[in-house]
């Protein structure tokens, strides 16, 4: 049974609502240390390593956004590559007009969030499976429209201007820091959102949508907010992709492979937990680096593992950890502490 109560409700004698079954203050400190150490990487490791890590930051940002969509809001989007592509093209267009790609990155994120509004209006009419394919069609349509403009490269794309002034080492380091910043901002934003009112509404919807609606939860608004945030996050990842690849090619940035990667990483790591995408990204990077010379094999194996996890270990790898050692590093739910001990852990995986 889940306890969805505001912490401010008057506590009865001996009862207390807490965020976690154990104190997680050290998690925050640990996360901070990890971020600080990661930020120093350009000074201590080879640039090959930071280049690989930029790829990991892109996947982690995308996976966290997909987790927010599918794991918390029940929106299975197969069209998130629309925002990856749009983010890349925002950076390209601004760079052509003389704005530094690094300065263009946050603009691209905001731009993608704004574009998400009318797109949501289109696809929100459809549910579950039809929503999934509709987002896919939308991504294909956006790519076809962008390919019509020859000034931004048409169907073949363009190299990204505006980065020639940087020395190679400096560019690698800046790209790495931009990647770290995008990931940290994305994850903190998701964490804060889910701990706030939005998280409460989404939890209520997951448990019982009709009951949530009749209690006055603004379900449509919550889903819209999730779609916009995920659009902005995927847009930031796309902007980062453009900067790290130094070119923008429509069929590459609008490839459904992005959605496959973010979805598989999330599912393998654990859908509906903050930690899941992190674990999934590590699995993804290990597989991808190990099988790098075998073309599409990493995607085949990743897909098979994700299907297996979805069927036989629905809470993913982090779910297995959580089951055995009762650990949430970044708790977003509530627990009821009774005089006799802890309330039952809340159920997790959204049913549809």
């Amino acid at each position, binding site marked *: 049974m889940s306890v969805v109560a505001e912490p401010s409700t008057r506590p009865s004698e001996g009862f207390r609502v807490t965020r976690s079954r154990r104190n997680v203050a050290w998690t925050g400190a640990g996360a901070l240390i990890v971020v600080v150490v990661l930020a120093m990487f350009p000074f201590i490791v080879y640039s090959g390593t930071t280049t690989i890590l930029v790829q990991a930051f892109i996947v982690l940002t995308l996976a966290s956004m997909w987790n927010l969509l599918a794991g918390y809001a029940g929106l*299975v989007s197969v069209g998130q590559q629309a925002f990856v592509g749009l983010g890349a093209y925002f950076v390209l267009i601004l760079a052509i007009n003389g704005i530094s790609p690094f300065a263009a990155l946050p603009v691209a994120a905001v731009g993608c969030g704004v574009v998400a509004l009318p797109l949501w209006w289109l696809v929100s*009419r459809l549910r*579950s499976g039809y929503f999934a394919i509709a987002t896919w*069609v939308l991504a294909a349509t956006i790519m076809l429209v962008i390919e019509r403009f020859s000034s931004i490269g048409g169907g073949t794309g363009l190299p990204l201007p505006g980065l020639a002034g940087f020395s190679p080492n400096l560019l690698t380091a800046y790209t790495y820091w931009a990647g770290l910043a995008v990931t940290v901002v994305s994850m903190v934003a998701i964490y804060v959102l889910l701990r706030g009112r939005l998280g409460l509404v989404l939890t209520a919807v997951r448990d019982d949508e009709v009951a949530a609606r009749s209690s006055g939860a603004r379900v449509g608004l919550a889903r819209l907010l999730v779609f916009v945030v995920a659009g902005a996050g995927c847009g930031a990842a796309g902007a980062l992709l453009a900067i790290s690849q130094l070119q923008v090619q429509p069929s590459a940035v609008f490839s459904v492979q992005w959605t496959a990667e973010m979805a598989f990483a999330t599912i393998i790591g654990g859908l509906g937990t903050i930690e899941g995408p992190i674990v999934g990204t590590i699995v993804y990077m290990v597989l991808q680096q190990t099988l790098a010379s075998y073309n599409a094999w990493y*995607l085949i194996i990743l*897909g098979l593992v994700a299907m297996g996890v*979805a069927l036989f270990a629905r809470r993913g790898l982090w779910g297995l950890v959580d089951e055995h050692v009762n650990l949430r590093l970044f708790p977003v739910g509530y627990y009821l502490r009774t005089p006799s001990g802890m309330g039952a852990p809340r159920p997790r995986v959204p049913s549809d």
Partner: protein
Amino acid sequence: MAWVNAIIQGVLTGGLYALFACGLSLMFGVMKVVNLAHGDLAVVAGYVAVGIIAVTHVPVLWSFLIVVPIMAVAGYALQRTLIQSSLDRSVLTTLIVTFGLSVVIENALLQFFTANTRGIGANLGLVQDSFNLGSQIQIGQLLVVIFAVAVVVLLGLQYFLSASKYGRLIRASADDKEAAQLSGADYRHVFGIAAALAFGTVALAGIAYGMYSQLDPTAGTDTILLFAFAAVVIGGLGSLWGTLLGGIVLGVAQQIGAQINISYEVLAGYLVFLLVLVLRPEGITTRRAQS
């Protein structure tokens, strides 16, 4: 006259799109499964046809007699294992598993058969010849045959679902699978039969596409799944005849787009799809036929 020609071509390609769509529509109508691997399975059927024709030298047009049963059996097996176990868990699991299947199939085809395109029966008279009405209007014989096949398949499905014993079982299980189970129908088996039917039409779609155009690993999602879905939404969810009408609207929109500028072909189809989504999310046929 060029416009008349475009519209005629559009109507006929609509038959092909309806053939793409009816398996998707059937799976959703009966099992409430949105099969994201639908298009990739059609491409697999096309590749199977290419292989069978190359190995056994059966006449191209009769290859469907082998491919359709193979895909039907595969459909029954897939439904009883992978799809049913995902359905037993949740809608989310079904989407993840079929999306995973789609990505795995597409990349496996790429890995084993490269990105090269493959046609079916490209040197057949049926594929190359056309009926000429005057100098402006040329109607490909193949498109006429595909349109006729689509109509026959839809009529057959309609008849099967409304009049046969298994059709009644399928409709009963689609309406309420627990109640059907209580009345003695094993809904899992019935769903398997429905999946076999759907996969049979998927096999026809794959072969038809291979003859009309070229098969390649990405055609399954880029073309077949997305066009099928657009046809289903334009025609109205869960309606078989709506699907044919939806396919025709999509085909005509694409051909008119192509008439303006050849590179607008696909885009014009999607824009009509989005327009329908905005104006009439329930599709252009209001009367809901049986699922």
